[in-house]
């Protein structure tokens, strides 16, 4: 393995590395990412505490905003792109996301069904005596 800092032509890109850009262009990427992330964060905090929107829509809006902000971080800070030099990174990310959704979605789904099918606690307690 060679110890080169920058990739050779025809190789993949390391996660976090960008294609060769000037320093100005790279800084601009971080500034855009920071601005978008701050905007999304401010929107999240505003929506969580406001009466201006239909209340049941707030949890959905918060989750959508969180996913959008994670996307902004991935693109502008971690430099994950859809380019052919990034295929390995994207595939690893996709597998990670699959496991995350299986774990979180599966847990919430199963446990909510268990909760719904359980008698209330005050009925269980007398049965155990």
């Amino acid at each position: 393995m060679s110890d080169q800092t920058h990739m050779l032509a025809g190789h993949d890109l390391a996660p976090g590395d960008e294609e060769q850009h000037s320093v100005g262009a790279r800084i601009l990427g971080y500034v855009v990412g920071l601005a978008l992330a701050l905007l999304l964060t401010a929107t999240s905090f505003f929506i969580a505490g406001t009466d201006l929107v239909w209340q049941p829509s707030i949890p959905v809006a918060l989750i959508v905003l969180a996913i959008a902000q994670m996307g902004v971080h991935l693109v502008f800070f971690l430099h994950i792109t859809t380019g052919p030099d990034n295929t390995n990174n994207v595939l690893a990310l996709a597998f990670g996301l699959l496991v995350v959704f299986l774990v979180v979605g599966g847990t919430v789904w199963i446990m909510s069904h268990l909760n719904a099918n359980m008698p209330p606690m005050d009925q269980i307690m007398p049965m155990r005596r």
Partner: protein
Amino acid sequence: MAMTATADRAHADPHHIGVVIEHPGPAPKRIVTAYGFWVFLLSDIVMFSCFFAAYAVLADQTAGGPKGSEIFDQRNVAIETVCLLLSSFTCGMASIAADVRNRFWFYLGMAVTCVLGLIFLAIEFREFADLVARGYGPSRSAFLTSFFSLVGCHGLHVSAGVLWLLTMMAQVFAKGFRADVLRRMMCFALFWHALDIVWVGVFSVVYLLGSGT
């Protein structure tokens, strides 16, 4: 000489199908290292997802104790969020400075990142100490157990990140921008950005969703 040429040929065409493809060889070490670290980060995120799942299930099991909306201070969380977001930005600036071998901007970016990380940790520690002092420690209810383990696990990661950050500054000071130091710096930047992604989930799911309902 002829021997090596034959060996090379056999290596490039192991199944003797007659088509010798110009193979670029193994990837540079920078890519191998960063890819391995990327896989570690993804498994770390999978671990966090288990804590998130536990929190989602246990969020309503307050056992007569406080609900999330009674103990969360939105202003503190907003300050923490801005600190971590800005530190992600300055960490990016430091890694650009490392790539162009500029010591001054590297040290400045890393120092600002460190200070912002420490402010984050101080606010979080004060929040935890305040909750425990009021009797709302992790043993009070299942909700508080899952809250302390999820947020505390992220806090531990940030603490480890701050230690790693100081190590990187010391290594650049002692060894300069060597290739191996630059690889570690790249892994550190990935780690710090990934922590910020996890924090986006924490403040949205725990603090904002929890204080709404």
